[in-house]
């Protein structure tokens, strides 16, 4: 004899039994015996064509029966045949795409949610690290922040996104998705990276006053964005669009609000 284990949800259709003893020599035969004993199980194990439903998984002891031929797999006396469902589901229609990675999608054709908490975390880290660089006179830290921002821009995401995700996973920050266009934020971050790389060139040319002046410009613009909600880089992006420059959006989308409401860097 072998044992068929019935999952909890199907036990009411098998007279509340947890297990069924079968004398079957194969998995298919065991299922036939089970269904003959408890016909009410049939609609939940088999579909209209008589095939096993997609959520039904069969294990022989610890191993998937599919590895041994599925319903043709042999059963030995003492084997346990486990019927184990996969649990699945989901919302009817795909919702608008949320991105904390500002990317190249058009808000008009494909409404996008931009996670402004990711942008604000990015801005806060830029400000803190650049202030630390200034106070400790660490030009290399300016270069590092600039490179992180440049790489983030190239990957179409906030440079410090991994830090944001870590903070979010520890529930220290909460997502703040807002229908928005991601491109201006990407542009603004790229602009900040360019200014920081220019600052490093100034350091290299032994022009520290110019270098730190550029660093403070980035700090000020990031702070204006973080605390004042005004994204200068985004405003510049839309201005370039209105000037007819290719690759720049002409103006904020209806869902994105005015440039003054955008926050990104």
């Amino acid at each position, binding site marked *: 004899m072998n044992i068929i284990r019935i999952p909890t949800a199907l036990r009411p259709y098998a007279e509340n039994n947890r297990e069924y003893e079968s004398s079957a020599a194969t998995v298919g035969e065991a299922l036939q015996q089970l269904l003959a004993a408890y016909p009410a199980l049939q609609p939940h194990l088999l579909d209209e064509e008589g095939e096993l439903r997609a959520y039904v998984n069969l294990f022989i002891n610890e191993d998937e029966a599919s590895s041994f031929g599925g319903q043709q797999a042999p059963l030995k006396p003492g084997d346990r045949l486990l019927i184990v469902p996969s649990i699945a589901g989901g919302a*009817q229609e795909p919702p608008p795409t949320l991105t904390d990675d500002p990317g190249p999608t058009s808000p008009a054709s494909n409404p996008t949610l931009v996670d402004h908490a990711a942008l604000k975390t990015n801005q806060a880290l830029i400000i803190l690290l650049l202030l630390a660089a200034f106070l400790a006179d660490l030009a290399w830290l300016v270069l590092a922040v600039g490179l992180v921002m440049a790489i983030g821009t190239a990957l179409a995401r906030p440079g410090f996104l991994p830090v944001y995700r870590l903070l979010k996973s520890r529930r220290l920050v909460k997502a703040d998705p807002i229908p928005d266009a991601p491109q201006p934020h990407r542009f603004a971050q790229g602009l900040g990276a360019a200014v920081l790389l220019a600052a490093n060139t100034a350091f290299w040319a032994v022009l520290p006053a110019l270098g730190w002046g550029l660093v403070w410009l980035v700090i000020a613009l990031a702070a204006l964005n973080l605390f004042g909600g005004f994204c200068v880089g985004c405003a510049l992006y839309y201005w370039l669009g209105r000037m007819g420059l290719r690759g720049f959006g002409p103006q904020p989308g209806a869902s994105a609000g005015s440039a003054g409401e955008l926050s990104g860097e």
Partner: protein
Amino acid sequence: MSLRISRQLLTRIEEHLEQVYPEEGAGMIVGLENASGRQALDLIPLPNQRQEAERHHRYLLSPQALLEAEVSAEARGLDIIGVFHSHPDHPARPSEFDRSWALPWYSYVITSVRQGAARESRSWRLLDDRSAFSEETIESDDHRPFLEK
């Protein structure tokens, strides 16, 4: 037909589903059913096994995870009595996809999470003929239906 669940457990469900937003989150509900009704007593949040690109509107819990959950619940003298999952930016109603994958008997608690915040939780059971879900009442500590906040 109703599901009794404490406010504390409902809050744990909400917090888990908010944490994984904008992806769908899910897990098992551990509890008891007897003559006096169905009572949720614990939760087992589980990782969504769908591919990353699908997780915003689909969830999948592996059979191994369900088996482990059943065995551990049975060892405590309890059962898996249902499943909770989120519908990010969608209503707390079962979809056709939910129906096609649903098991009978389970309570399916669906939480609508909008803009990262849990808004509404409702519970459903699949009809025996698998044609549709029927809503069951959620009875919480304060005996109020747990609906739109």
